[in-house]
C-alpha cells in the first residue's frame, strides 16, 4: 500500500477500514542468500538498500526482540555531517544527503526536519578549531557557517552569553542538520524492505554461527538453524557478544549513554544546539519536550540504564548554557548501550570468516549514520568491496596506525 495525502482522505471517508499491517510476520525459511543480524535502524536500512539498490533477493533480517527496539528507538534523533577528518566527513555527508531524500525514497513520513545545528564556541582556540572543521566540511561538499556572537544571540537570546567561565563567542552552524522521528526511520525501512520481499523475523536471537573451513554456513538461532551464503552483523551495543560466536575479539567496549526528556514547554529552541564547554546537546521535540544528553557514564555496561552522577553532570551543563530551564521538570531518562570503538569511529568491514561481515562501533553517533551505514553495508555485502565513502572503516586500521580519531583521545573508548 502506497501512502499519500489522497489515501489519508480516502481512508477518512471510509472509516479507516483499509489500513493493513505494515509488514508481514513470516516464519524463517531454511536458507537465505543474505542474513542481516539485527533489526535496528542499520540492519533494516541494510536490508532495504540490499533489495532496492543492489537488486538482491532471498534476504532475512533476524531480530532478537522487536524491530527498532534498540538504539534506533532510544537516541536523541539528531542528524548532521559536521565531522573534520577525511575518513569520516564524506561518509556522513553521504548520509545527510540520503536523509534529505529519504521520505520520498521509502514513502514514509519520518519527519525529517532540517532545523539547523549549532556548536557553540567559548574560546578563541575553539573558534580556530571550528573554523578548521567548517572548512573541512565545505571541502567535502557539506555546508558550514561560522556565526558571531550577535548572530547566535539573534537566534537564542536566552543563552548565558556572559557566563564568566564559558562566555559564548559564536558558533559553527550547519543549517542542513536537524532532527528525525527516530522510530519512523526503523518503521519506514522495515516497511520498504518487507515490500521488496525481505523476511523480517522477530523474536529470533542468534545463539551461534556455523562456520566450516573458514566459511560461514548459517546461524544458530532461538528458532533453529538458518542457512545463509552471507551474514552481515549490525547489532551495535551487542557486537562483542554476537561476534564472539565467530571467535572474534573486537576493538570495542560497550558503554551506557543516557538521554533525557523534559516536560512539554512552549517552543523556544528552534534547532539543535551543543554546548562547547561541556558535553551537552539539546533540541526541542514537536511535542515541546526538551530532548537532551551528554557524556556516557564511562564504565563498561550492558544495562540500558545509567547512574545519577551523570544525570547531575548533564543537568549542570544544561543550566550553565540555559539558566532558563532551571524550573523545568525532567520527565524521563533512559539509557542505551553504545559500541564504543577504540578511536571513536565505526567499522564496516569483512572479517576473517568468508561470508561474514561486520557493521558496528558507532559510539554514540550511529543514528545520523543510519542511511549511509545501511547503503555502505549493503554495498559491501553485495559487491564484496567497500563503498567509496566507507573505505577507511576497516578493522586493520588499528594495526596499521590509520585511526580516525576525531577527538584525539587514543585507545580510551570511554573518553571518545
Amino acid at each position, binding site marked *: 500500500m502506497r501512502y499519500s495525502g489522497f489515501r489519508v482522505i480516502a481512508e477518512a471517508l471510509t472509516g479507516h477500514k483499509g489500513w493493513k499491517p505494515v509488514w508481514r510476520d513470516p516464519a524463517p525459511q531454511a536458507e537465505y542468500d543474505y542474513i542481516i543480524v539485527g533489526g535496528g535502524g542499520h540492519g533494516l536500512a541494510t536490508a532495504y538498500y540490499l533489495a532496492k539498490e543492489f537488486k538482491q533477493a532471498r534476504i532475512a533480517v533476524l531480530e532478537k526482540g522487536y524491530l527498532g527496539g534498540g538504539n534506533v528507538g532510544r537516541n536523541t534523533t539528531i542528524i548532521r555531517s559536521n565531522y573534520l577528518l577525511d575518513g569520516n566527513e564524506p561518509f556522513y555527508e553521504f548520509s545527510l544527503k540520503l536523509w534529505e531524500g529519504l521520505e520520498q525514497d521509502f514513502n514514509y513520513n519520518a519527519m525529517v526536519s532540517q532545523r539547523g545545528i549549532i556548536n557553540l564556541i567559548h574560546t578563541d582556540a575553539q573558534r580556530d578549531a571550528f573554523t578548521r572543521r567548517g572548512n573541512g566540511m565545505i571541502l567535502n561538499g557539506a555546508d558550514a557557517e561560522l556565526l558571531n556572537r550577535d548572530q547566535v544571540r539573534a537566534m537564542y537570546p536566552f543563552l548565558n552569553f556572559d557566563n564568566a567561565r564559558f562566555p559564548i563567542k559564536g558558533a559553527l552552524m550547519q543549517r542542513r542538520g536537524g532532527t528525525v522521528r527516530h522510530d519512523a526511520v526503523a518503521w519506514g525501512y522495515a516497511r520498504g524492505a518487507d515490500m521488496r520481499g525481505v523476511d523480517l523475523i522477530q523474536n529470533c536471537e542468534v545463539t551461534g554461527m556455523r562456520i566450516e573451513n573458514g566459511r560461514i554456513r548459517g546461524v544458530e538461532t532461538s528458532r533453529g538453524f538458518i542457512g545463509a551464503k552471507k551474514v552481515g552483523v549490525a547489532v551495535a551495543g551487542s557486537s562483542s557478544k554476537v561476534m564472539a560466536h565467530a571467535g572474534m575479539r573486537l576493538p570495542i*567496549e*560497550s558503554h551506557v549513554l543516557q538521554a533525557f526528556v523534559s516536560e512539554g514547554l512552549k517552543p523556544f529552541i528552534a534547532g539543535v544546539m551543543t554546548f562547547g564547554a561541556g558535553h551537552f546537546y539539546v533540541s526541542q521535540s514537536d511535542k515541546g519536550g526538551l530532548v537532551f544528553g551528554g557524556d556516557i557514564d564511562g564504565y*563498561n555496561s550492558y544495562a540500558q540504564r545509567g547512574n545519577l552522577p551523570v544525570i547531575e553532570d548533564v543537568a549542570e551543563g544544561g543550566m550553565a548554557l540555559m539558566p532558563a530551564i532551571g524550573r523545568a521538570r525532567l520527565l524521563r531518562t533512559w539509557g542505551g548501550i553504545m559500541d564504543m570503538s577504540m578511536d571513536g569511529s565505526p567499522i564496516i568491514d569483512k572479517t576473517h570468516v568468508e561470508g561474514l561481515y561486520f557493521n558496528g562501533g558507532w559510539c554514540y553517533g550511529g543514528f545520523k549514520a543510519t542511511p549511509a551505514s545501511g547503503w555502505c553495508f549493503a554495498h559491501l555485502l553485495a559487491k564484496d568491496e567497500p563503498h567509496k565513502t566507507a573505505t577507511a572503516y576497516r578493522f586493520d586500521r588499528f594495526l596499521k596506525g590509520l585511526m580516525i580519531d576525531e577527538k584525539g583521545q587514543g585507545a*580510551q573508548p570511554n573518553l571518545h
Partner: protein
Amino acid sequence: MIINHPILGPRDAQEFVYLGDANLINRPDGMTAGIEVFHDYLYNRDNPAGEHRELWYHEQGDRSWLVVTRNTVTHEILKVEMARDVAKAQGRSK
C-alpha cells in the same frame, strides 16, 4: 555505584576514574612481543556481558589503583582488590 575500597571502605564511584579491562595490567614486553601481540593488547577487548574485572583509579582519594569485579548487566560490584596485590599475585615485582 559504591566501591568498597579495601583500605578506605565504601566510596562513591564518582571519586574514581575508570580505565577498563584489568588485563591492561599485563602489558606485553615491548622488546620481545611482536606488533600483533601489542595490537591485541592495546585495542581488542573481551567486553563481556556479565562479570568483568576492571581497573578503577581512586583519583579523588588515596590515588590507588583497584581491580573491581563488577557485573556489567546489573552494575553489581562483586569484589574489590588492590591492583598492586593482583599484579604481584601474577608474578610482577610491583
